[in-house]
Structure formats: C-alpha cells, structure tokens
C-alpha cells in the first residue's frame, strides 16, 4: 500500500473536480428509491450523507445515522458489473439490400468505451472485478468490450467503516480493507472533532492525481484510528462461511437431499444472479427490423435459474429448481475453483439480502453434506 495522507472534504470535492476535468464520467453512491445505487456524482452533496443500510437475509432498509458519514452504509443492490459488462449490449449489426437477398454485410457496433471513474468501490467489489477479469479478460478469449471499459476505468476504493448484516468478506479473505486493484483508496475518519479521509494511492495514475489534490501527511494517530475502524468492521461481519474443505464437501455431496429441501423455498427468480458481482453469464439474442433488412446481435445478462439456460433437445437439462440452485451454489463455491483457481464468491452478502425467500448461501453451504460430515466425525471420535 502507498503512503497515507489526509484529505479534507474540500479535498474530496477537488478529487471529483479533477476527475471531471480529465473527462471521467464519475459514478458513485446515491440514495434513490430507498436504496443506495451507483449513478452520476459530481458534488459531495450527491452522496448519501447520514444514511446507512440495515441488511438481513431477505431484508434491506435505509436508516438515518447519528452522524453525516458519506460512506456510512455497507452495499447497495447494484454491483459495478453493470458498467463494465452492461446488462444489454449490441455486438454487431447485419444488413442486406432486401429480405430476399442472399448476401448480407456484418458491421461492427460502435465500440468507443466510456471512461468511468468509480467512487466508493468496496474491497469485496474490487476483488469481484479481479475475478471477472480472469473470466472476461484473461481467459482464452477476451471480451473486447469488457477489457476496454475495464482498462479505462479509474477506481476509488472506500474501506468499510461498518459491516452489513449479511456481509462475510472476512471469511472469504476479500475485505473489509482494499488491498489491491484501486487507483486511490479512502478511509472515512469521522468523530466529534473532524470529518476527513485517509487517502493512499495504489497506482501511478492514482499517485499523479493525488499529487495535485490538497493533502497533508497522515500521522500515527490517523493510522491508529483507521486500523481500529477496520478491525472493528472485520469483527462485526453479519455472516461467516467456513471455506476449509468446502469445495470438496460440495462436490462430494451433489445428491444430498438438502438440495431438494432448498428447492421447496427457492422461487428460481434469479435475483441472486442479478445482484451478484461475480456472476458473468450472458446470452446472445438476434433481432431484425420489420422489413427484414437489418439484423442486430445483442449480448444480455442471463441467469442459470431460467429454464432456457440449460435448454437442449426440447427440454431443460436442469429442469428442477434443486438442480438449478445446486448448479449456482456449486459453481460459486466449488467448480469456480477448478475453472479459475479461486471461489466465485467475495462475501458481499447481496444474494442473501435480495433473495425474496431469504435463502442464505452461508447457511445452505454449511448444511450440504452435513449428514455425511457428522457421520465421519462420529467415526473419528469412536
């Protein structure tokens, strides 16, 4: 980590101004429809000062804080994914002279990538983006649109001053402190005497920007205050997940009756896949104009909870909800390790919070294979 400096509220506004002057479209937290969402931010007044979120499985509520913290919430429903891999996106267009023509031309879609600056990226979200990098950028084939948007983006992390009721980044080793992947990282220092930020640069372009902002070196007391905040956050995770042996246990228990039990609760609505910051699945759709002369191919987010997702030969491979939930959970916490060398879950808790049936990935993962587990324990003790 780079050296720490102190940044005032005016300094933070100067950061926004400097990014704006450099042509960045700044996205950050805003309060809208009783939730924190990511949208355009140009002034500090745009930020959700004094608001926090209360989260539980199946529950999300905005509440007033006793102070005016700008980043005093845990996480909203949207991940940054929607800006790096948009929910709907045109890949190319095709054109022919008339509907009976044999020939057509395929034309690329406009691809100039937008230049985003992301303000308020949590440690778990930075980690989720690094997970998506492995899939969409560093894989055998790279998704050109993702790669370009990703390369342009400027990341301003904000370390978490509080853990949400469904958070478990500490279990996943992804938070609450941003370790890598940011250009600048902030920690909000707020008490009766001051409202400031600790700021450090994580990249050359971050350091270059920091250099032109009004800042002063941080002292021992600042660092101690930050350490205390982050230690407190890590100790107050709403959830935990035991990851030791988890991959093997899940892969060895694909026929556990507990999958069927989950299916009695899961509505197969796909909310969990829409809010998850690591989910990457997409589908391709083709449309034509009425005249039949223009065709367009679009990429759209897809969910493994739909029947279409696994449709072949007039039927769905994963026809039952148990199979679909099993596919999702074993992908996140087990198969992902085989595919990409790490789990596909960063412990952000969104899938718990936004599940209408309050299904909790940490509880379900702990329950799978428990019967065999207990037996083994008994044998071990005997």
């Amino acid at each position, binding site marked *: 980590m780079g050296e720490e400096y102190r940044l005032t509220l005016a300094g933070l506004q100067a950061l926004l101004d400097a990014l704006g002057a450099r042509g960045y479209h700044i996205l950050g937290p805003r309060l809208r429809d009783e939730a924190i969402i990511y949208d355009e931010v140009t002034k500090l007044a745009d930020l959700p000062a004094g608001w926090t979120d209360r989260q539980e499985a199946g529950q999300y509520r905005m509440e007033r804080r006793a102070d005016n913290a700008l980043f005093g919430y845990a996480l909203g429903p949207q991940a940054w994914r929607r800006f790096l891999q948009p929910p709907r996106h045109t*890949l190319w267009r*095709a054109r022919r002279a008339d509907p009976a023509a044999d*020939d057509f031309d395929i034309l690329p879609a406009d691809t100039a990538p937008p230049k985003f600056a992301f303000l308020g990226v949590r440690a778990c979200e930075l980690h989720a983006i690094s997970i998506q990098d492995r*899939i969409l950028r560093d894989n055998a*084939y790279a998704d050109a649109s993702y790669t370009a948007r990703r390369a342009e983006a400027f990341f301003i992390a904000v370390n978490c001053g509080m853990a949400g009721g469904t958070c478990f980044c500490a279990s996943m080793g992804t938070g609450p402190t941003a370790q890598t992947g940011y250009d600048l990282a902030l920690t909000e220092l707020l008490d009766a005497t001051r409202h400031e930020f600790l700021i450090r640069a994580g990249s050359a372009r971050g350091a270059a920007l920091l250099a032109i902002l009004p800042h002063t070196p941080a002292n021992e007391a600042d660092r101690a205050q930050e350490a205390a905040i982050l230690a407190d956050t890590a100790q107050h995770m709403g959830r935990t997940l035991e990851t030791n042996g988890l991959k093997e246990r899940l892969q060895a228990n694909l*026929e556990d009756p507990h999958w069927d039990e989950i299916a009695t609760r899961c509505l197969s609505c796909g909310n969990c896949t829409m809010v998850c910051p690591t989910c990457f699945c997409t589908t391709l759709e083709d449309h034509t104009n009425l005249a039949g002369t223009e065709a367009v191919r679009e990429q759209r987010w897809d969910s493994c909870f739909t029947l279409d997702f*696994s449709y072949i030969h007039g039927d769905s491979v994963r026809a039952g909800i148990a199979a679909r939930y099993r596919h999702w959970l074993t992908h996140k916490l087990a198969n992902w390790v085989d*595919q990409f060398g790490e789990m596909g879950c960063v412990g952000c808790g969104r899938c718990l919070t936004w599940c209408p049936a309050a299904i909790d990935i940490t509880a379900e993962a702990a329950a799978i294979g428990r019967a065999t587990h207990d037996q083994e324990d008994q044998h071990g003790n005997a």
Partner: protein
Amino acid sequence: MKAAPLRPAPYRVRRIKRELHGVTTLELVPAQGAVPAFEPGQFNMLYAFGVGEAAISISGDPAQADCLTHTVREMGAISTALAQAHPGTMLGVRGPFGTAWPTRAAEGLDVVLIAGGLGLAPLRPAILRLLAARPLYGRLILLYGARSPNELLYRHELEHWRQRLDVDIHVTVDYADAGWHGNVGVVPRLIPRLGLDAQNTLAMVCGPEVMMRFCGAALHDAGVAMDRIHLSMERNMKCALGLCGHCQFGADFICKTGAVMRYDQVAQRLRLREI
C-alpha cells in the same frame, strides 16, 4: 489471450443434400479467404441472418480444404433456417471450436467408433481420416444405431464403407420395418459381442447422452481403459468462447474442454441427473 471473435465470417452455401426428413448437409465456402484448418470432432457456430447462431459439428473430410461441411437437423428456428438454406445463401461462420477426436493417439490401436442417430455426423471426419490412413490403425469397427431404417444417415456412404474389407460395420435400429434384415436393439448391446482386444482398443462415441453413458459402461466392462474412451458432450451453447457460461457441465465448459471429452473425466457426472 486473443480478442473474442464475436462477428461471424460470411460463407456461401455451395451445395446442399437432403439426407433424411429434416436433415440437410450443407457445403459452405468462404466469401473471402481460405477455409480454416479443423480437426475431426470440432464444431462451428453457424449464423442465419436475423435468426441466430447454432453450434454445428463439422461433418466433412478434414483432407478436403476447399469447403466446410455441416449436417443439420431441424430442431427449432435456427437449425431450420440453416437447413432451409439453398445454394447461394449467405451464412455466417465462427470457429472452429472445441477439442478433437484423438485420431493421432489412436495410431497403432484398434478403434471402435460408436454413433447414435445424428451422432454419426461429428464422427464422420474421424472415420474419413482413419480410412485415409488405414495402415496406421489396427482393427476398425463402426457401430451405428438409429431409431428406424429410414433414419440412417449417410446410407450410401455406409454401403460404400461396408464394401471395404478392412472395416467392420454393425448397424442396428430400435424399430425395424418389413424390409430390414439387420440388427434390432440398442447399440450398447452390440459391444460385448465384438470380441475386442481391450488392452489395445480406443473408442470414440457420439450420440444421445444416455446412449453414451451405456456405451461407456459397456466398453469399460469389456475391459477398455476409461481414459481410452472418448465421448462428445452437448450442452446449451451460445458464445463457444468460454465467456457466456451456458455450456457448463460440472466444472467443464463444453466449448473449451469439450465437446470431445474422456470418459474417465465425465463418468461420475454422467451418472448424476440434471448436471
């Protein structure tokens, strides 16, 4: 990594052949440039204007470099649009993708090729390569099962191969008609009767998943090593680039580590439902 090829290349249908009711073979030539090299077992994504793209195995001779040959069964909108193409129609092609039948690893071994239904199409390039280099291989056996006699694909070519004395061909149908004198019953049942020299046998199997599961088990029972049994798996496929997530089969992306996969790697999953 390379940039994902998302835009299809234009090809033109040169010739069509109606093989069976609803099954057509297309010969495609590139509108510009050369036909890419491919290995038996690989597939392309074929695009019909405005309708969409489908994964279709290459069914042509790998030694024939001037066109791409594909055999398409009409299943839904896309495959029907492809099969209804006529000479001159432009189609889009992305590929080739996926793993290959182990024609090189099979050198010096007896080879059993087992096809069910349209599964003969993805095996055809392997068969043609083996026949073209016949002395490199031991015994060659082709087992082919179809639902009924009038659903036998490449019938003319099967007769032609049958006339060669250096390949054993066994054809079976689930339901015979009055004119049928051959085997009746499912393909896996033929395996124990082949008298395989199991220690020196490699198998390539392509057909419906249940049929491949039973064939894998029967070959294994006959003593063929699991890692010498190769199957061509199928899952819903959209991008063929390992990016869309659709073709996952356990931890495998069929477009990357398949479609041709080793039985020892998939046997456990084949026993489970809805994977």
